[in-house]
């Protein structure tokens, strides 16, 4: 049973564990304003806003792709859809501005765009801030429009603040909240009702409960953001009779400052912390990493996807693992142990360096039942530089062909603690150990970098796929090292003379 608010109205629905919010809306509730464009979370036509109460009890809304969001995660949440914004004939400012700016043509992507604008409007109401190009891109990059070319949508975003809206926020529950809950029967299900009771969408509320579920049902998939897992349902027609949800486990939601045994300071970032929640921390300490998040996925994905998911997924083209490898990250794992001799309730925890986590293509060090409890993010060190350069066909919301994450420090003109990690170059995210060795202890000379570029050839034998040929990967990865040389030596020169620096990369892509 899912209990939630739909546009301010309490709802109770039955649904199988693998039902998406989009299916719930369209098939069960007959709310067809929200559209399916791709069912993979890449087009944004199904964008809805999911509200959760903050510490002050105010509902805060985040855009999400309904097509890959598990319906059961709506429990105790407030769902707002395109049908919920207008009050009679009075359009919400996001809607009114879209009409006035001629920002809809075929109209199919429009509901999703309206909902993304709605979340921006809500943010502006709460904390007005300039609508910079970067901010608009961060809001709307996940909403594809095939008709307009986006200019009128940009205009709508810029002008919606000029529209007034009646004081009543119709998408929120009225002050005198009634307890009348409309019960909706599931209209479509291949599962007999008895089976549904025996299985389900499990939402453990503690790490202990989570591990107990893992012990009892090692086959049940874990879900947090669902940005990858749910494609199994929509694309490969997987059925999940039982799903274990990580989003309500408090231990996985914390970001805690810590000092490791080796003396390094940093933070344990909970495995189910979303990219969106990580953003402020990164913005303060690792701007390059924060910039990457904006190219990693759309707002809808950043609001849902988690750091733990990106690592556990172990894709060779996941964007955060190379960065974390370069930073020397560690993992804190928790699991049920081997089951021998234990009471059956204990949680066995261990730590290991991220370097040791990735074994082979989509294979990791995770033991049966184990979860990533937290990821160690070290505190930035003075003098130590970080660069993250992602190459993809499209700048926004695209998967990397190659990603390079580089850290180093200059010690008296010599490069030290060089770590060069790449995605897209091997079966796992991987450091270029030979290339690192070619630079470690050397001045950033053309000769040293030529050696590093040559060493890359022994580090990696990339493959060809839909995102790029092996040749391109080899060449562009080597050229990223050349870019690195230019950056490092420019820094060096900057100290020596005040000869202004020449741009060696496009700001929109890389810094």
């Amino acid at each position: 049973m899912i209990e939630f608010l739909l546009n301010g109205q309490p709802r109770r629905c039955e649904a199988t564990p693998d039902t998406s919010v989009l299916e719930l809306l369209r098939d069960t509730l007959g709310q067809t304003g929200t559209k399916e464009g791709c069912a993979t979370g890449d087009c944004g036509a199904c964008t809805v806003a999911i509200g959760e109460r903050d510490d002050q009890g105010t509902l805060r809304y985040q855009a999400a792709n309904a097509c890959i969001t598990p319906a059961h995660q709506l429990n105790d949440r407030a769902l707002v859809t395109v049908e919920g914004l207008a009050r009679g004939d009075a359009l919400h400012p996001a809607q009114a501005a879209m009409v006035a700016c001629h920002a809809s043509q075929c109209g199919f992507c429009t509901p999703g765009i309206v909902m993304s604008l709605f979340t921006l409007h809500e943010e502006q109401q709460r904390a007005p801030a300039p609508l910079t190009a970067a901010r608009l891109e961060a809001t709307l990059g996940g909403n594809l429009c095939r008709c307009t070319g986006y200019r009128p949508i940009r205009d709508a975003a810029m002008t919606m603040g000029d529209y007034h809206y009646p004081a009543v926020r119709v998408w929120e529950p009225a002050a005198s909240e009634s307890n009348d809950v409309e019960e909706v029967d599931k209209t479509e299900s291949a599962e007999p009702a008895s089976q549904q009771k025996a299985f389900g969408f499990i939402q453990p509320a503690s790490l202990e409960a989570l591990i107990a579920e893992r012990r009892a049902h090692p086959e049940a998939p874990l879900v947090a953001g669902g940005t990858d897992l749910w494609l199994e349902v929509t694309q490969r027609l997987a059925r999940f009779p039982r799903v274990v949800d990580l989003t309500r486990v408090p231990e996985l939601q914390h970001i805690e400052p810590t000092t490791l045994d080796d003396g390094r300071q940093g933070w344990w970032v909970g495995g189910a912390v979303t990219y969106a929640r990580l953003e402020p921390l990164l913005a303060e300490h690792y701007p390059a990493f924060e910039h990457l998040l904006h190219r990693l996925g759309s707002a809808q994905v950043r609001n849902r996807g988690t750091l733990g998911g990106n690592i556990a997924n172990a894709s060779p083209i996941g964007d955060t693992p190379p960065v974390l490898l370069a930073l020397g990250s560690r993992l804190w794992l928790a699991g049920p142990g081997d089951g021998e001799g234990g009471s059956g309730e204990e949680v066995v925890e261990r730590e290991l360096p991220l370097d040791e986590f990735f074994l082979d293509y989509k294979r990791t060090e995770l033991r049966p039942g184990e979860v990533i409890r937290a990821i160690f993010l070290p505190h930035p060190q003075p003098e130590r530089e970080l660069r993250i350069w992602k190459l993809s066909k499209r700048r926004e919301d695209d998967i990397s062909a190659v990603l390079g994450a580089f850290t180093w420090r200059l010690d008296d003109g010599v490069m030290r603690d060089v770590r060069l990690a790449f995605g897209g170059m091997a079966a796992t995210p991987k450091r270029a150990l030979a290339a690192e060795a070619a630079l470690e202890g050397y001045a950033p000379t053309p000769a040293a970098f030529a050696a590093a570029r040559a060493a890359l050839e022994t580090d990696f034998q990339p493959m060809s796929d839909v995102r790029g040929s092996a040749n391109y990967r080899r060449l562009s990865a080597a050229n990223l090292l050349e870019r690195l040389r230019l950056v490092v030596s420019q820094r060096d020169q900057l100290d020596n003379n005040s000869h202004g620096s020449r741009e060696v990369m496009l700001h929109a892509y890389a810094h």
Partner: protein
Amino acid sequence: MRTLTKPRQRQGSATASSTHAHAHESAIKHVTGRATYIDDIQAPAGCLHLALALSPVAHGRLAPVDMERVRALPGVVDAVGFHDVPGHTDIGPVFPGDPIFVEEEISYAGQVLFAIAAQSQRAAREAVKAAMDAGVVKIDEQPASLDPVAAAERGELVRPTHVQESGDWQATLAMASSVVEGEQFVGGQEHFYLEGQACLVTPTEDEGVVVHTSNQHPSETQKLVAEVLGIPLHAVTVEVRRMGGGFGGKETQASPWACIAALISRRTGRAAKLRLPRAEDMRATGKRHPFHNRYRLGIDEAGVIQGGELTLIGDCGYSPDLSEAIVDRAMFHADNAYSLGQARVTGHRARTHFASNTAFRGFGGPQGMMVIEAAMDDIARRVGEDPLTIRKRNLYRGGEAPLRRTTHYGQTVEQLGLLHELVERLETSSEYWQRRREIIDFNAQSPVLKRGLALTPVKFGISFTAQHLNQAGALLHVYTDGSVQINHGGTEMGQGLHTKICQVVARELGLDLEAVRITATRTDKVPNTSPTAASSGADLNGMAARDACLRLKERLFDFAAANLHADQGLERDGMRLEAGHLVAGSGESQRRIPWGELVQAAYFGRISLSEKGFYATPLIHYDRETGKGRPFYYYAFGAAVSEVQVDTLTGEYQVTRVDILHDVGDSLNPAIDLGQVEGGFIQGMGWLTSEELRWNGDGRLLNEGPATYKIPTFGDLPPVFNVELMEGHPNSMASLYRSKAVGEPPFMLAISVWSALRDALASLVNYREAPRLDTPATPERVLMAAEALRRHAHLETRPSEEVVP
């Protein structure tokens, strides 16, 4: 009817103008989620949902499928394959060649083998999976033909090769002071309409069906559904309210789904819905044709083309579909806006084992233009002039020899003054030359980042090249409360056609736009329609709607002159409809009768308040035997200046500024037209930059969704985007209020982005050479082109350790 509803009358504000920037007629429905698309229609009880079994291989022989075994699978209500079709099994739209289901020969990966109906889409998809897993499909796989150039050389064509020739091109080439030649691959493009292919079919009480479909060509679907069912056309009604995007992808390729759903609907007596999941949509349907183009052109010392030959090979996929006309249109546009002199243009239609490539905004025109735009850059580098100088020198021009204003297929290019003025105005407003100087300075200083700039023009021919399609009908109803309903043969796919048609009717009848309601396109309202394609929607259907209005007006005027205003009658001369009134006479004797009163009086006077309209484009003709004629009623023009910045170490680039000036004659609706220009440009930019389709070596599509197929997104909108409509140049032909078609022409403005990329790369070798840059020009292709230039320069000049010069 004995008493009539009080007429609806709005006072005063009736200033309906056909040229006003009215909002899209569905705008409020779009933003509130109330606009209904196929999958949003509330399905009748018992509606079945369909899923398709698609071939996993590109070429092979299918062993007979045991459909009874398929029907016996859990959850399957019904299933249909080739042998279950009562009528025609070939649903080729123009030429035969498209089987509704595979009988034996499999021609592409994604071809439909059979269809399953179940209680839900999910259940149907699972049943298809179960059927495939159960091994009901046995295929003897054979080598696939995936190289269109090799196919053309072997003579494997879906239609015969066509040639257009003007003058003695061989002698011209032999005598030219210099010959420039080149070769290019121009990639295809997935339509990526946001609403995928979908239809809902309900059985009628007779032998027929009603088909709701997301479809640009309802009449063709009506015909094919009738043929497949083996019933007359009058038993089939097709309705299209709107599409969530079409772009050509729903011109012919929306029909198969309607035919399949109609089969199930008639077999079961239940409603049947077929909606393709994105991945299946991308696999099953054809795309923009990839082209392989070659050119060999003789030029004079100034870089002016004297003549030569152009060869275009369109990759048509496995069947003709619309490829005859598409490759024709590529040939008609291989000159773009330039005189080819004495030239031969050859177009081959290669048959390969891909989905049948189909209409897509521009319909071959963009692929044809690419070859001559490549030549312009190459000529400029050869003679050492700026590419804009060369382009201007080669533009069609009046006053000189007729050859310089006549196309290679014999049509005289009119409004050349407009073309030249447009290019010059854009050259000035975009500050082309000042920016050119800045860019040259910048590039000399910047080792890694390089900037590029290009101005490219567009001349696009308007009319269907299949003459008979240039006709349209409309049906106008006036009701006794004065409200007006208009229907026409065109379909709404977001382009604002319905809005423009309402404006036409409101203008002709002197009413507020609100008084005019448009209804879904239906084959039982206006029959035998042409597809909404070739940018012709407003030109044709607007004229038909106007014709209906003019006829009805005449009838009302005659009635009013004879019967209204007591016994005196009204002055017939100069009678008009304006601001919600019939106005007769002038000065003292002027009489004004409210529209509602006029309508009710006419009703009681037993005057028909319904009228149909018709239009057929005059003057056009083309003779395929001689390759000569006037295929186009007129040309639409435009030009764009794009600036890019390229990172030559990674191939990443950004379009930093775009200036566009585009000709729509006298605009019917400047807001809608601007939307078409901007949207067309961005879509064209996607085609040439990030939208890369890839197949594996066995012919299986690797991009099955937006995760791997990258259409432009919000951040790809150029930071500076100055777009204007050219004013003061009405269409020289008697088109609808002297407007011009706008759907397709702006798409090709994006060629300026590609040319600017080549310009930026050319700076690596001091503009001595233009690199070959196939499309889409992904960062990978840009980097590889930069590498090739650097290697070239390296070999020619100096050895160096440095990657960066």
